[in-house]
């Protein structure tokens, strides 16, 4: 006897093959804001150059709450969280994540819509034990927090 879920699966899948599923062409993302990828920061191979690509040298600000694990089980996936207390640091328009010792330190930049929460969670690759930076832009000024994350080797060394 065929179960209900299988029937549902069947009808749903009849039209979508394996390869079609992987190469499904969907609508190009709607672009409401102008896209402005800071390419200079992304191609930079050193942390100072990457920060310059974002517009300068940030100053440390305590309103930025940057959470990373002290020690990561795997450098391929390091969870990070950035929150900004908007009472102490209002008008944040950009949030960036940098990994100092990566071949390209710039990992991600986020444009934040006005009048919303400054809260980003993602996962980044960390090639080796080093500092991670959370950089935010508010009213044209750059601020940051940094944290060290230790990356450990696996059981058999790779």
């Amino acid at each position, binding site marked *: 006897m065929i179960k209900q879920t299988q029937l549902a699966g069947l009808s749903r899948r009849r039209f979508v093959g394996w390869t079609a599923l992987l190469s499904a062409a969907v609508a190009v993302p709607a672009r409401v804001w102008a896209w402005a990828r800071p390419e200079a920061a992304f191609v930079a191979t050193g942390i100072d150059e990457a920060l310059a690509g974002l517009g300068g040298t940030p100053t440390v600000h305590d309103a930025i709450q940057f959470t990373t694990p002290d020690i990561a089980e795997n450098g391929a996936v390091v969870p990070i969280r950035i929150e900004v207390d908007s009472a102490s640091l209002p008008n944040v328009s950009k949030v960036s994540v940098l990994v100092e010792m990566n071949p390209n330190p710039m990992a991600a930049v986020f444009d934040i819509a006005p009048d919303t929460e400054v809260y980003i969670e993602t996962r980044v690759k960390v090639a080796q034990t080093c500092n991670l930076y959370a950089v935010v832009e508010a009213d044209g000024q750059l601020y940051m927090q940094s944290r060290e994350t230790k990356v450990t*080797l696996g059981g*058999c060394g790779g």
Partner: protein
Amino acid sequence: MVSALTLSSAVVSSERLDAVLMESFVDNGQATMERLQQDPVQQACHQSRTEPPDAAVAATLRQQRLDAVVFPADGNFLGDWQRGAAVADNGRGLQSSDDPAQPNGGNCYACHQLAPDEVAYGTLGPSLTGYGARGQSEPMLRYTWTKLWDTHAYNLCSHMPRFGAQGILTQQQLKDIMAFLLDPASPVNQGLR
């Protein structure tokens, strides 16, 4: 082919085991089928599972292993602790996925705590942090070298690889590991709380 056996009695003839192994594995780069053939130590330690074999056999085997240890020809046991640290950290070598042209690692941290500032250490073997406190007397040098060369000479059926006897590490690498363990300047012997 498959003989009926009861659940509790693990009686599998060695012929059957060999045939199954030959059928189930294939050469994979440097990891060739010859590696499945057991030498006397492997055979004794497999048959006896976790416990050493009977006393007489064990004594004979241990003595054979002890007699076969090769000590440094120049009488110098201690190399460079910095190079030794790298050997202790390196887990590669002799796997099908490893480049045979690259030196093998000792992977000491997989099982032992060594330098106290390295948090990623295993616990299958005892902690060796502060090992250098044992000093560098001739018997201590020979004992440590022997443990690295062929652990079964002292501790038959230990889980530790025979780094010298099986050709996993070179004499120079073993000297470097010796220095990493025994040199007072080595991080193994620093920063102890």
